[in-house]
């Protein structure tokens, strides 16, 4: 199969995972926790690498998810001891990321894990890194990992849509209804960690946050319904990755960087022109309001 096909498929799967989870992160005002997780998974990946002695997808998934959850737990622990949430996030993600970088640098000879690759990803090489099962070529590994992550996300969101929705909207009420808010919190965080590790090879750990936040925020400006927001978010993500891929090809530059740049441009356009929440529309309304209040004065 052509390389374009695999790259597109990877990008689309990643956009779907990030787009869906991003909506919940934004609504729960946890966009920066998503950022923190995507950095904090690095030591998990490094440890999995060291222990398994190779790029074992499953080990990496488990290691990264564990570290992501540890990061969330530590952040919450610091918050509960009275440190502001911003500062807690800053302290924990930088500390874990520093450990990750040190682990990778110290073992640079033992493990074939290029820091640049972890941080920026190279979606262009997706098709050459295939998953071999009993000698059979099963297709690119990234596609399998992202596919698995998407399957988990769809299953959990499908089963517990109602619960995720209410915990995002009003956690106190959710708790009063007997919904185990904490369980859903950690489920969401676990999914974000899983997605971070599955995406890092295509866009890189640092830009995962872009795919988590930007398409979801764009969708947030377009609709007031959660269901639609999820769909729009995924669409914006997929469009950005396709346009981004070709832009990168034309410019001969990083695909990850270009995908996020395109997503950012889409956001700016929406921010200015959205029929409901765009700046232009609001300006018009403000003018109208000023006019009515003037009319009022005249009376």
């Amino acid at each position, binding site marked *: 199969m052509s390389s374009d096909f695999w790259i597109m498929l990877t990008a689309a799967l990643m956009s779907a995972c990030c787009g869906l989870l991003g909506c919940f992160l934004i609504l729960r005002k946890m966009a920066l926790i998503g950022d923190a997780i995507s950095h904090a998974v690095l030591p998990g990946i490094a440890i999995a690498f060291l222990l398994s002695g190779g790029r074992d997808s499953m080990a990496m998934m488990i290691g990264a998810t564990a570290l992501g959850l540890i990061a969330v737990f530590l952040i919450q622990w610091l918050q509960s001891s009275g440190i502001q949430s911003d500062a807690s996030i800053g302290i924990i993600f930088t500390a874990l990321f520093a450990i990750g970088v040190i682990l990778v640098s110290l073992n640079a000879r033992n493990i074939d894990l290029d820091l640049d690759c972890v941080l920026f990803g190279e979606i262009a090489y997706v098709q050459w890194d295939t998953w071999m099962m009993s000698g059979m070529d099963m297709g690119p590994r990234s596609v399998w990992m992202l596919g698995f992550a998407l399957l988990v996300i769809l299953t959990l969101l499908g089963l517990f849509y109602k619960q995720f929705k209410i915990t995002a909207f009003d956690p106190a009420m959710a708790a009063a209804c007997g919904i185990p808010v904490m369980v859903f919190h950690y489920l969401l965080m676990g999914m974000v960690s899983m997605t971070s590790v599955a995406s890092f090879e295509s866009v890189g750990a640092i830009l995962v946050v872009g795919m988590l936040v930007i398409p979801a925020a764009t969708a947030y400006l377009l609709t007031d319904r959660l269901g639609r927001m999820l769909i729009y978010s995924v669409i914006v993500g997929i469009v950005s990755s396709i346009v981004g891929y070709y832009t990168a090809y034309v410019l001969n530059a990083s695909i990850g960087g270009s995908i996020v740049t395109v997503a950012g441009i889409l956001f700016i356009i929406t921010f200015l022109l959205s029929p409901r929440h765009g700046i232009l529309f*609001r300006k018009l309304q403000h003018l109208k309001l000023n006019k009515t209040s*003037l009319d*009022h004065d005249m009376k």
Partner: protein
Amino acid sequence: MNTKPVNLPIHTAVSPLNAQSITVAYHKKPVVQNVSFTLDEGRLVALIGPNGAGKSTLLKAMLGLVPAISGEVSIYGKPYASQRKRIGYVPQRESVDWDFPTNALDVVLMGTYGRLGWFRRPGRQEHEIALESLSKVGMADYADRQISQLSGGQQQRVFLARALAQQADLYLMDEPFAGVDAATEKAIITLLEQLKQQGKTVLVVHHDLSTVESYFDDVLLLNRELIAAGPVENVFNTEMLQRTYGGRLTFLQDSGSMIMAGK
């Protein structure tokens, strides 16, 4: 709703605060609309109205903290900017982080910053003013206390002391009575009386209808628009309150000994 201008008694002295058709809007919604009023010198004035009536917003608009889309405010007959030093402001207690690394005296000292100018630090004179202000609200013993270790009422009193240290002529207070203990409430009202005796003017955002008559001289009734303004005995009556609170007043009447009882 009736929007005809409310006339206050004519007076000769320059009014501490004169607001002309103030309108404030957040995004699309007007929060305060076309409010005009004049305060008399040496009076304690309550600003009351239901939740979301725009009381705090109006207060902040007076101070230029939120932009008004129309209207003018004059303080002692002059534009606000030139009269800043004559205004003392007590924000809502929740508006700051009480975990900030500082003690009670230091917060009160902040009240002297306006007079100190750009680079001078508070000296001995300022320390004396601050200590005196603290003792006026009964908090002299807590000067060295880290502010997070004060109770809600004590924090409120520290804020009041800070306003005293501003040595202003007109005080604007945003819900100073909200969520305070009885001792603090008493301390605040004694302080208000003292300020009044010194000829100062105090505008207080207030929410407890049952104490309006005993604490205040004048009242402003607000629900987006100014419903009525004037001395308590003229304005604070069932009809006006009904118009301010609408259907919610019956709820108020049911829930405890309402002010209406005596009327």
